[in-house]
C-alpha cells in the first residue's frame, strides 16, 4: 500500500489495537474528530469509545491517568495535540512515567507511548512549531523516537507500543502529507535506539532526523554535484538512546560531521551528539564538528519561519566550511 505518514501511523495503531486489546488510545479530540491531524481517524468507530477515548482538555490528567493504566498493565497510546502543549503534562512524564521502573526496583513497568506532532514547516505560530525533543532526550528512563517518513513511522510506532519503557514519539507536522511510500500490509517493526545510514559517503557525515532529514539529503546531493564531495547521511530515528556506535563508525571513516536539527542550538541534541563523537572518534576528526540548528530564540511566526528553520543553504555553508578546514 502506498501511504502518507498520517495513514501509515493510523495503520500501526489499528493493527496494534487489533492484536492486543490492552492497547488503547486517548487524547483530546482523538475519537469523534479523529485527531487534529487525523492520525486516529476511524479508530473510535472500529474499537469503541472505551478504547479510543476523547479526554477532557487536561494534559496532566491524560498523561497521569495513562501512567496509572500502564502500571496496571494496559498500554496507553496518548496523543498531545501539539508538542507545545506538553509542558502542561511535563511533570507527569518526568516525575512519573520516566521513573516508575527504577523507583519500583523493576517491579512496575510503564509501557506507554506519547505521540506528539512537533516542528515547523506548516506556517503555524508559537507553541505550534517548536522542536522540543531535547527536553525528553535529557530525561533518564525515556525513549525519544522521531521517524522521517511513512514506512519507518509505522514500524517505529509498532515497536514503541510493544516496548516495555515509556516512549515519546514525535511526528514532524511537515512530513504528515509530504510523501507517500510503500508500506507493507503485515506489521513491521524497527528496533528502537538504532540509526540508519540512508546514503553512504566517505567525505563527511551529515547527521539528522525527522523533517530535517530531507534537508540533509538534499544538501548531500548538491555536495556531490557541485563539490564532488560524498556525504554520508545518517537518520537517527531514535534520539535517545542515541546510536553512538553508528555515529562513531561513520565519523571514523569520514573525519567530518555536521549535525542538523530544528531545535534551538544551545544545549540541544547536537551538543550530545558532538560530545559522543568526540569521545569515540576524536583521533579521526579532521575538522570541528558543526551544528546547524534553529537560532536561540522562541519560534517566530509564519512570516519569518523559513529563516528560522535550518535549510539547505545553511547546511551547505556548514558542510563546505567543514570540508575546507
Amino acid at each position, binding site marked *: 500500500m502506498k501511504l502518507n505518514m498520517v495513514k501509515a501511523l493510523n495503520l500501526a495503531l489499528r493493527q496494534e489495537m487489533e492484536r492486543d486489546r490492552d492497547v488503547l488510545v486517548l487524547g*483530546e*479530540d482523538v475519537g*469523534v*474528530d479523529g485527531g*487534529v491531524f487525523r492520525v486516529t481517524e476511524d479508530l473510535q468507530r472500529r474499537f469503541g469509545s472505551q478504547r479510543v477515548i*476523547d479526554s*477532557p*482538555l*487536561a*494534559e*496532566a*490528567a491524560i498523561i497521569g491517568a495513562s501512567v496509572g493504566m500502564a502500571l496496571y498493565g494496559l498500554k496507553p497510546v496518548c496523543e498531545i495535540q501539539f508538542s*507545545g*502543549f506538553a*509542558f*502542561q503534562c511535563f511533570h507527569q512524564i518526568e516525575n512519573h512515567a520516566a521513573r516508575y521502573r527504577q523507583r519500583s526496583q523493576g517491579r512496575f513497568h510503564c509501557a506507554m507511548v506519547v505521540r506528539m506532532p512537533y516542528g515547523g514547516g506548516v*506556517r*503555524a*505560530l*508559537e*507553541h*505550534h512549531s517548536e522542536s522540543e525533543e531535547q527536553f525528553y532526550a535529557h530525561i533518564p528512563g525515556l525513549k525519544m523516537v522521531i521517524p522521517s517518513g511513512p514506512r519507518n513511522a509505522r514500524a517505529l510506532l509498532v515497536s514503541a507500543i510493544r516496548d516495555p519503557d515509556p516512549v515519546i514519539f514525535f511526528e514532524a507536522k511537515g512530513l504528515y502529507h509530504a510523501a507517500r511510500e510503500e508500506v507493507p500490509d503485515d506489521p513491521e517493526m524497527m528496533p528502537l535506539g538504532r540509526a540508519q545510514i540512508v546514503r553512504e559517503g566517505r567525505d563527511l557525515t551529515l547527521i539528522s532526523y525527522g523533517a530535517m532529514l530531507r534537508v540533509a539529503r538534499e544538501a548531500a546531493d548538491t555536495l556531490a554535484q557541485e563539490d564532488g564531495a560524498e556525504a554520508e547521511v545518517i537518520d537517527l530515528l531514535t534520539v535517545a538512546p542515541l546510536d553512538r556506535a553508528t555515529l562513531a563508525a561513520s565519523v571514523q571513516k569520514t573525519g567530518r560531521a555536521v549535525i542538523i536539527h530544528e531545535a534551538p542550538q544551545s544545549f540541544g541534541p547536537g551538543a550530545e551528539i558532538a560530545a559522543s563523537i568526540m569521545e569515540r572518534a576524536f583521533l579521526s576528526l579532521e575538522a570541528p564538528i558543526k551544528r546547524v540548528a534553529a*537560532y*536561540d*530564540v*522562541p519560534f*517566530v*511566526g*509564519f*512570516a*519569518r519561519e523559513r*529563516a*528560522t528553520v535550518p535549510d539547505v543553504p545553511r547546511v551547505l555553508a556548514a558542510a563546505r566550511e567543514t570540508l575546507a578546514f
Partner: protein
Amino acid sequence: MARRTDVRKPAAAALGVDAATARRLLADMMLIRRFEEKAAESYALGKIGGFLHLSIGEEAVADGATSVLRPDDYAISTYREHGHCLAKGSDPRRAMAELYGRRDGLCKGKGGSMHLFDRSVNFLGGHAIVGAHLPLAAGVGFAIKYQGGDQVVVCYFGDGAVPEGEFHEAMNLSALWKLPVIWICENNRYAMGTSIERALAQHDIYKFGEVYGIPAEPMDGMDVLAVRTTVARAVERARRDKMPSLLEARTYRFRGHSMRDPAGAVYRTKEEVEREKLRDPIVLFHARVLETGALAEADVRAIEKDVNDRIDEAVAFADASPEPPLEWLLTDIFKED
C-alpha cells in the same frame, strides 16, 4: 413631532442605555464582526498564515464587558482574542497588520493572530495555551492590589479551560487572596470538537465559582446589554471590595474552531448551528435599538458604513506594511556575548 418624542422616551428607557451608548455598543460589535470577516478572506488568500480563530457570534461578550471598563483597566485573553483586543481600543489597522505578520503589527508581525498584545490599551495579550493565562490574570490582580490601585482585570477564557488544573488553581488563588479579577468564561459549548457534555462533569460552569466562594452567575452571552449589566456588577465588586467574580457567558461560535475547521461540521449538527444563528447578537441588538427607537435605520446604516470603511482601511494598511526585517528574528531577547 410631539408624538415621535413620546415614542422615543419610554422606548429608550426600555433599552436601559442612552442612544450614544447604544450606538457605541452596536458599532463595536459590527467592527469586530467585519474585522474577522475580512480576516477570513485574507486567510483564504494566503495573506494570513498560522491559525485564525474567529469569534463571530460571540462579539457581545467582548463588547458588553469592555463597555463597563475604564481605559486603565486590564484585559487578558485566549487565542480567540481579536474581539477582546479591538473592544479594548486597539487600532484595527495594527491588529490586522499583526495577523498579516507585518512589521507595523501590534507585535511587529512576530506574534500573529493568537498573540496580540497592546500596552497602550492595557491589553495583556492573546494566549495560545488553553488555561495557562488564568494564573497570570491573578498575578496582575495581585499587583494592582499591592500597588494600591483600583483597576480591575478581565480574564476571558473558554469552556475548554475549565477541565485544566490551572483554572482551578487560579479560581482558588483569586478567592483566597481577594483579587480584583473578573473571570469571564465564554461558554460556546465546544472545545475544538469536544462538547462540554463530553468534557465536564458539571455543565453549569458558573457553579465552579460557588465552591470557591466567588460570586458567580451565568449570563446570556448573545445579549450585549445582559453582559453589560452583569459585568458592571462584577466590576463594582472588584473595584470596591477586591472581590473576584466568575461569569459564565452562554454563547456560540458560528464558525468552526479555526479556519482549518471551516464549518465545525463533524461534531455538531447543521440544525444546531442554524438554530444558534437565530441568536446572532448583532442582529438581535440591531432589532432592539430600532424597536425601542434608540436609533433609526439611517443611524445604523451610517454606523455600518463607517465600520466598513475603517476595516477596508485596516486591510489596506496591513497589505501595505512590509514584512519584518530579518534582523528582527534576533531582537527583543538577550544575547550571549
